[in-house]
């Protein structure tokens, strides 16, 4: 079993980085690997629980929730969260933790592979 780290800087509804990040994570989890995400920059917008968009059946936050349910660890950069007015991430879906770059440094020390998206 390997541990995969994913640094996601892309936000939802504009670029597809978040979806690629989720797909990679789901595939890794399905094969029994551990997956740890660090959400950085606009990546911190992905877990907001109030998302709605008429052209999408599944919101990014729903995919994030599924990842949490499947065992992924997801940490959002606190400086990025507060810079974007997200008030400590209190509007996040359950299971997403607000942390800091020391958490990312910890992920760097744990992973077998790191993907930047």
């Amino acid at each position, binding site marked *: 079993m390997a541990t995969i780290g994913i640094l996601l800087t892309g936000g939802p509804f504009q670029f597809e980085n978040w979806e690629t990040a989720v797909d990679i994570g789901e595939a890794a989890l399905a094969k029994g690997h551990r997956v740890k995400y660090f959400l950085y*920059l606009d990546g911190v917008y992905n877990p907001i629980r109030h998302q709605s968009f008429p052209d999408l059946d599944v919101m990014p936050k729903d995919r994030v929730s599924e990842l949490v349910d499947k065992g992924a660890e997801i940490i959002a950069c606190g400086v990025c969260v507060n810079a974007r007015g997200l008030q400590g991430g209190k509007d996040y879906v359950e299971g997403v933790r607000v942390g800091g770059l020391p958490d*990312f440094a910890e992920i760097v*020390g744990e992973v077998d592979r790191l993907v930047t998206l």
Partner: protein
Amino acid sequence: MAQRHVLITFNHAPYGSIYYTEGLRAAVGVTSGIDEHTVDVLYLGDGVYFALKDVDRRDSAKYLGTLSASSVNLRVERDALLSRGISESDLAEGVEVIDGDEALELVRRADLTIDF
């Protein structure tokens, strides 16, 4: 958990996005944990514009200072400079110009790479 050597590459120009300085914040952050990871910083592609001497670095100054205090040099790839018509005399003090082979060696030496 283990100490890792991480190569941070910058491909984005220092305008049009925040990657140039938030990437440096991440570079400093990577070194901040209990594992005491080490980093190299390499500018590639349009990222080399950050190495020009007249670039406004005020928002990155504290990260650059921290990296410098840890003896982390800013390196730029020579071909990226040449293809953009940038001469070494246009670069800020302390920037190290390296060839493509040396850049590849940095990749080989790194346990992990992160691109901004």
